[in-house]
């Protein structure tokens, strides 16, 4: 069983690296935003915005959340719907490989890609804009792993229910833009109106960003947000297993 999972993960990882567009999008998008926003807003703390910390410090964990979100809602659904459309899932179904192994390999690949993307964000933010490193690194790592698991479950759910690659591409881009702008990786929450906040609160990225930010900025571990993130994971996993279609 483990052998099957590791083998499939290794092949999937190689396939990811061979797909340049996905790779560039996943790794470049957060870097572009770091260079724009950190450049514009600097890193001077202001009690009225950015939770009272400097913009650069605020954005670094937020962009790690964005990396996770873009892997999960842009990359993964397109990958899975593409597999369904072209008959790859049909072939896998006729093999002894269980469904959870296929999902598991997507989780592992996403985790590895998110680690690479997250490290790139840290390097860029620290080297170019002197962002501070996490206050509680161990908690940040825990928040990171929980966030990846949760978001990947959402991505697998999207890939399970969306009918076509086109639908996955369209919806994925829409979701990532809305989440980025309103879920904590765009304008600070303090300047948003009630509607914008409401929409932001409805996106999983909002909770992932807070889950990462709190231990990073020295606000401790946020249990409520952690439970919300885990709840999203449980719900999305359950729905995926129920709604997944091979063909």
């Amino acid at each position, binding site marked *: 069983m483990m*052998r*099957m999972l590791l*083998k*499939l993960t290794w*092949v999937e990882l*190689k*396939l990811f690296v*061979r*797909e340049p567009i996905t790779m560039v999008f996943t790794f470049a998008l957060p870097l572009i935003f770091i260079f724009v926003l950190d450049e514009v807003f600097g890193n001077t703390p202001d009690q009225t915005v950015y939770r009272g910390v400097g913009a650069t410090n605020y954005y670094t964990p937020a962009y790690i959340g964005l990396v996770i979100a873009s892997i999960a809602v842009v990359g993964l659904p397109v990958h899975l719907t593409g*597999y369904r459309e*072209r*008959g*790859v899932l*049909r*072939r896998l*179904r*006729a*093999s*002894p*490989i*269980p469904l959870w192994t296929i999902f598991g390999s997507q989780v592992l690949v996403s985790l590895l890609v998110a680690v690479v993307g997250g490290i790139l964000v840290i390097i860029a933010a620290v080297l170019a804009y002197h962002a501070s490193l996490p206050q509680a690194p161990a908690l940040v790592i825990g928040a990171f792993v929980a966030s990846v698991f949760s978001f990947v479950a959402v991505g697998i759910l999207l890939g399970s229910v969306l009918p076509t690659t086109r639908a996955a591409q369209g919806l994925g881009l829409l979701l990532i833009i809305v989440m980025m702008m309103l879920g904590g990786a765009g304008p600070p929450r303090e300047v948003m109106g009630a509607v914008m906040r409401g929409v932001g609160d409805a996106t999983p990225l909002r909770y992932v960003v807070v889950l990462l930010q709190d231990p990073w900025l020295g606000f401790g571990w946020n249990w409520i947000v952690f439970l919300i993130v885990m709840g999203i994971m449980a719900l999305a996993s359950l729905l995926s297993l129920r709604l997944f279609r091979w063909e």
Partner: protein
Amino acid sequence: MKSVIEVEHLKKTYGSLVAVKDVSFSVAEGEIFGLLGPNGAGKTTTVECVQGLRRSDSGLIRVLGLDPQSEGRALRQLIGSQLQESALPDRIKVWEALDLFASFLPRGLDWRELMEQWGLVEKRNASFSSLSGGQRQRLLVALALVNNPKVVFLDEMTAGLDPAARHVAWDLIRAIRERGATVVLVTHFMDEAEHLCDRLAIVDQGKLVALDTPQVLITTHANQIRVIFTTDHSDISWLEQIPQVRSVTRHGPRVEVEGSGSVLALVAASLVAHGITPSDLRMEQPTLEDVFLTITGHKDRN
């Protein structure tokens, strides 16, 4: 002989479309069993139900003693599948695909050997998307064999293969059987069914319309023998007196005599008796194609 597949009164509908009405058959161990029929006859649906890839509406299916619907995972370890309309990821390499599918089971074959047998060695580092139709097909068949299956399902295995590759494929299928595996072959190629299959089920409009060895099917359903020769003699009406002769047709010097049984010998003797000794006297025996057309009645469509 021990049977490895039992299908009784299989029925499958898609909405209002009845794909399989009532199909029953059994396949013996070590047999090459063919399913032949026109497009849309229900062949693919039948084998997909047998492999547990589709849920049948009613009927009983047992493969190697397992129920494909409730014991699908256990079954898939024992069978190999080459499916229509299935594919691999675009950028996966030939050797990676073989290596991956071999890893799904502990008792897998050496995939390097399969790669060689199916002529894929030169393409081992090529990506799936860069392969030709025939190469893809050979890779998908090789993948169906990589777990050393007890039963192999091949759905239009030689579609997209050139004639030489088809004959190589036939030899390899016979070799699978030599190893003791049972082969279920879905095809619409008459020559393939006739040369390769031990027994053959003809499916039409969701029903099984004939089931026997190709030879018995031919002798029962198409016993029409055609004797053909050319002659300048104007009056050959005496040929119609021979009891085994059914009809005589003439196109200029070319004569076609249709009949059954020993018609060739009798026609030849009669010709000699009338002083006619054509140098091009020959006989055309019925083929599976004639059987197929007789049984399914799709002559006008083809």
